[in-house]
C-alpha cells in the first residue's frame, strides 16, 4: 500500500507541476525595436486578426489595477479615477499626443502680452449629461467650487485663482476672462490637466449638497460632465460602466464604442490570462515578465511609451546624508544600469534629474550621474561619513523593487551597512509624508510620481521646496536648498514660458550635480496592451494610464 500511496502522491505532484508549468500558447515573432529617447514609438508586433470575440463588440473592456477611490474632480488623485473622468468629463483644453494643447470646450483663447489676462471663447450648443447648457457661468461656478472645496486637487486651479469670484469675469454667455495680478503663463497647461480641471455641471453640485460639502460625497460616486460617455454604474471596487451620451456635441458619426466597462483586477498578474483568453480588450498594467511574453503575441499590440511618470528614492538630508557630498556619494554608488537592464528588464529608462525627458523644461545637457564607487568613496571621506555607518532604506517593494538590494550590495563595498525596512505601501506612504523626527527616520525611501500638468514648478515644488517638508507637502527628504527655493519661487511668478525654462535648467543643475535630494532612478513608461482589433489609441504623455475612449473603436 505504501507503494500505491507513493505513486498517487507522485501523480498528484506531477499533475500540479505540469499545470503550473503550462505557459501561454504564443508564437514568438521578431522582438520589437528598442525605445529611443525622448518619446519612443509604440511597440507592436506584426499584427494578426484578433481571436474571435464571444461578446458584444460594441463594448470596450478595460482592466485596471486599482479600485476607483472617488471621481469628484478636485478630490483624490488616482490614475483609475482619471481614466473614468476622461470618459465623462471634459475641460476647456486638452493635451495633444505629440505635445501642445488642443481646444475642447473652448473654441479659442488668447492671453495678453504679460499673461495676466486670459480670454476664452466657449463652444456653443454643448450640453451636460443632465441636459443643462454649458456656458461661461458654468465654467466660473465650477472653478469657484474646485478651489473653495479645499480638496487634494484644489491647488491645481487654486495656484492661479486666489480670489475666484473676482478673477473670473463673464464677458458674455460664451466668453470668460481670467484676470490676474501676476503673469500666469502656465494657466493653459493647468486647464488641460486630467487632475482637478474637468468641468462639472453646476446643477449637479448645487442640487446634491449634504452638510455644505459642495456635493463632494455625491460627486465622488456620480458624474455629470459634458464628455462622450455617461456614468451608468459606479461600483468602485468592482467595475464602472459608461454608456454613450446621445447628445454629445461631437456626435456619433464614425466608429466608436457604445459602452465602456472598466474592471478592477487588482492582481496585475491575472491580466495576461484575461487578455489571452479575450476576456478584456485592454489592460493598464502588466508585470515586466508578462510584458515580455505578451509583446510577442501577434494577436496583441503592446505599447511602451514614456511620459511624465518616474521613480525616485528620497535621500534624507539629515543624519549621515546631511551634507550634499554624502548624497552625491550615494548618487555615484547607485548601480543605474543594473537597475534598468537587469531588475527592470529594460522596461524603464534612466531618469537623470527631477524632470523626465518629456517634461517641459527638461535640460538634455543636465549633469548625469554614472556609477563610480571610487568617486563615491572619496566623497564619503570628504563628507566625514565613517565606515560602518548604518543606513535604512524604507520600502514597500511597490515602486523601485530590487533597487534596495542593489544599493545594499554597493554600500557594502563602501564599508556601509544598509538595512532594508519593508513595510506595506500605506505605511511607507504616510511615513515619508509625515513629520517624523530625524532620529529613526529613514535614509532612503522609494516613491513613484508624476505632475498634474506639464509645468516644472508643478512637478517640483511639492517635492523639493523647503516649505513642503513632511506633512506640509511631499518633501520626504526634508530637503532645504536656498537656491532651489529661490528658483521655485521665481518659476511660480515667471512671466513667460521661456523664463520658466531658463529657471528650470538651473534648478535641475542644483538638484543633480550640486545638492541631490534623491537618487534619480527611472522614467517609467505606460505599458498598455490591447487586442489588435482595438484602434484609435494614442498615448498622451500628460495623461498617465488613461485613454481617449471616444476615439477608440473595434475594427
Amino acid at each position, binding site marked *: 500500500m505504501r507503494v500505491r500511496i507513493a505513486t498517487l*502522491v507522485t501523480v498528484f505532484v506531477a499533475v500540479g507541476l505540469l499545470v503550473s508549468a503550462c505557459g501561454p500558447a504564443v508564437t514568438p515573432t521578431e522582438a520589437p525595436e528598442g525605445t529611443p529617447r525622448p518619446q519612443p514609438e509604440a511597440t507592436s508586433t506584426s499584427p494578426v486578426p484578433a481571436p474571435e470575440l464571444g461578446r458584444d463588440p460594441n463594448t470596450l473592456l478595460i482592466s485596471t489595477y486599482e479600485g476607483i477611490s472617488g471621481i469628484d474632480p478636485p478630490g483624490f488623485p488616482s490614475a483609475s479615477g482619471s481614466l473614468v473622468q476622461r470618459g465623462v468629463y471634459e475641460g476647456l483644453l486638452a493635451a495633444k499626443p505629440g505635445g501642445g494643447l488642443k481646444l475642447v470646450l473652448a473654441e479659442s483663447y488668447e492671453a495678453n502680452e504679460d499673461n495676466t489676462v486670459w480670454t476664452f471663447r466657449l463652444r456653443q450648443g454643448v450640453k451636460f449629461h443632465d441636459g443643462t447648457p454649458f456656458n461661461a457661468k458654468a465654467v466660473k461656478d465650477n472653478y469657484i467650487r474646485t478651489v473653495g472645496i479645499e480638496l*487634494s486637487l484644489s491647488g491645481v486651479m487654486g495656484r492661479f485663482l486666489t480670489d475666484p469670484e473676482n478673477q473670473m469675469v463673464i464677458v458674455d454667455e460664451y466668453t470668460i476672462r481670467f484676470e490676474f495680478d501676476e503673469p500666469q503663463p502656465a494657466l493653459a497647461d493647468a486647464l488641460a490637466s486630467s487632475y482637478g480641471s474637468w468641468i462639472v455641471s453646476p446643477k449637479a453640485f448645487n442640487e446634491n449638497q449634504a452638510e455644505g460639502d459642495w456635493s463632494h460625497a455625491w460627486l465622488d460616486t456620480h458624474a455629470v460632465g459634458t464628455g462622450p460617455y455617461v456614468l451608468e454604474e459606479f*461600483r468602485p471596487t468592482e467595475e464602472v460602466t459608461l454608456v454613450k451620451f446621445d447628445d454629445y456635441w461631437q456626435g456619433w458619426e464614425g466608429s466608436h464604442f457604445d459602452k465602456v466597462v472598466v474592471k478592477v483586477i487588482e492582481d496585475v498578474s491575472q491580466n495576461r*490570462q484575461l487578455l489571452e483568453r479575450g476576456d478584456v480588450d485592454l489592460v493598464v498594467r502588466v508585470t515586466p515578465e508578462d510584458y515580455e511574453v505578451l509583446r510577442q503575441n501577434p494577436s496583441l499590440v503592446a505599447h511602451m511609451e514614456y511620459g511624465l511618470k518616474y521613480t525616485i528614492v528620497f535621500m534624507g538630508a539629515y543624519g549621515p546624508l546631511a551634507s550634499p557630498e554624502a548624497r552625491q556619494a550615494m548618487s555615484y554608488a547607485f548601480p543605474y544600469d543594473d537597475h534598468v537592464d537587469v531588475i527592470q528588464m529594460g522596461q524603464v529608462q534612466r531618469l537623470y534629474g527631477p524632470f523626465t525627458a518629456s517634461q517641459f523644461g527638461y535640460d538634455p545637457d543636465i549633469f548625469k550621474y554614472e556609477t563610480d564607487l571610487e568617486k563615491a568613496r572619496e566623497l564619503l571621506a570628504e563628507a566625514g561619513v565613517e565606515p560602518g555607518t548604518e543606513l535604512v532604506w524604507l520600502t514597500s517593494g511597490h515602486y523601485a523593487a530590487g533597487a534596495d538590494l542593489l544599493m545594499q550590495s554597493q554600500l557594502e563595498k563602501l564599508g556601509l551597512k544598509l538595512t532594508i525596512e519593508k513595510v*506595506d505601501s500605506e*505605511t511607507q*506612504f504616510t511615513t515619508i*509624508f509625515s513629520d517624523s523626527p530625524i532620529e529613526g527616520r529613514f535614509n532612503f525611501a522609494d516613491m513613484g510620481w508624476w505632475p498634474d500638468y506639464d509645468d516644472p514648478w508643478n512637478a517640483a515644488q511639492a517635492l523639493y521646496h523647503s516649505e513642503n517638508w513632511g506633512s506640509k507637502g511631499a518633501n520626504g527628504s526634508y530637503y532645504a536648498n536656498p537656491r532651489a527655493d529661490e528658483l521655485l519661487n521665481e518659476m511660480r511668478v515667471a512671466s513667460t514660458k521661456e523664463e520658466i525654462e531658463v529657471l528650470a535648467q538651473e534648478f535641475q543643475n542644483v538638484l543633480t550635480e550640486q545638492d541631490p535630494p534623491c537618487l534619480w532612478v527611472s522614467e517609467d513608461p505606460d505599458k498598455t496592451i490591447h487586442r489588435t482589433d482595438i484602434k484609435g489609441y494614442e498615448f498622451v504623455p500628460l495623461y498617465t494610464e488613461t485613454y481617449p475612449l471616444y476615439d477608440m473603436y473595434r475594427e
Partner: protein
Amino acid sequence: MSRFLIRRAFFTVLVLWILTVVTFTLSHVIPADPARLMAGPKASPEILDNIRRRYGLDRPLPQQYGIYISRLLRGDLGVSMDSRRLVVQDLKDFFPATVELVFCAMCLAVLGGISIGVLTAAYRGSVIDHLGRLLSVGGLSIPAFWLGLLLQLLLYYRLGWLPFGERTSTDLTAFAHPTGLYTADALLAGRWDAFIDAAKHLIMPAMVLSLEPLAVIARLTRASMLEVMLQDYIRTARAKGMKETVVIVRHALKNALLPTVTMIGMQIGWALGGDVLVEVIFNWPGVGRYAAKSILSADHSAVMAVALLIGAVYLVANVVVDIVYAAIDPRISL
C-alpha cells in the same frame, strides 16, 4: 431554552463590545495616516485638516470611540474612506456575495467531508481509506492561494471550462438582485441563463474555500466513526442481522456526528476568515476582499464594520450549533 438564548445573547453583546474596543484601538494605533492616504501627497496642511475634521479624525481617540459607539447603536457604521460610500451600503452589496460563497463552500465541505469520513471509516485500511486520507492531508496542507491559482490556470486559462472569477459575466443581461445571492436571484427571476452563469462563477472559488473545512470534517468524522463502531450497540446491531448500511448510517453516523457538528460551526467562522484570500484571488466582490482593501488603506470604519460582522456571524453560528447539538443528542439540555 429561553434562558439559554438570553444568556448567549448577553455574552454575544459583551463579546462584540470587547471586539469594538480591540479593533478600534488596533486600527487607530497603526502608523498609517488615513487623512494623508485619502488626500494624496500633494495635499496642503489645510486640506489635511479639512479631511480630518470631516471624518472626525482630529478629535481625541476616546472621543472618536464614543462617537463611533453612539453611531453604531443607531445603525450608522460610518463612511468608507476608500469607497466613499456608507459602510452599510458597502456591506449590503458585498455581504451577500460572501454568504453565497461560504454557503456553497460549506455545503461542499459538509457533504463531501462527512461522506469521505464515513467511507474511509467503513473501508478502513482499503484503497478508499488511503485516498480519503490523502485528500484530507492534502486539503489541510495545500495553501488556498496556490490551489486557487492552479485551478484558474487549468480550468480557466488552459481549458476554458470556467470563468476566472467575479460573480457574473460582464455581458450578461442585468437581472434584479432582491436577495443579493445571484444564483437565488436568477432563479427568482426565472433566468436560467443567469443561474448557469452565476453557478459557473461560483464553482472554482467554492471548491477552493471548501477544501480545508472538508478535510477537517472528513478527518474528524472518520475518527469519530471508528470510535463509535467499536461500541457494543454497533456489535449488537450487526448481531441482529441489520444491513451494514443501516448500521453505519442509522446507528454509527448519528452518534459520531456530535463532534463534527461542533466543528462545522467553527469551520463557518474559519471560512469567513479564509475567505479573504479566496476572494482576492478570484476577484470575488465580497466582504473578504473588501476587508483586505480596507485594511491596506487604513479605512477604519470599514475595518471595524467587517470585524464586527464576522464576529457576529461567528457567534451566531456557535449558538446555532449548540441548538443543533441539543436536537441531535437528547442527553444534552440547554
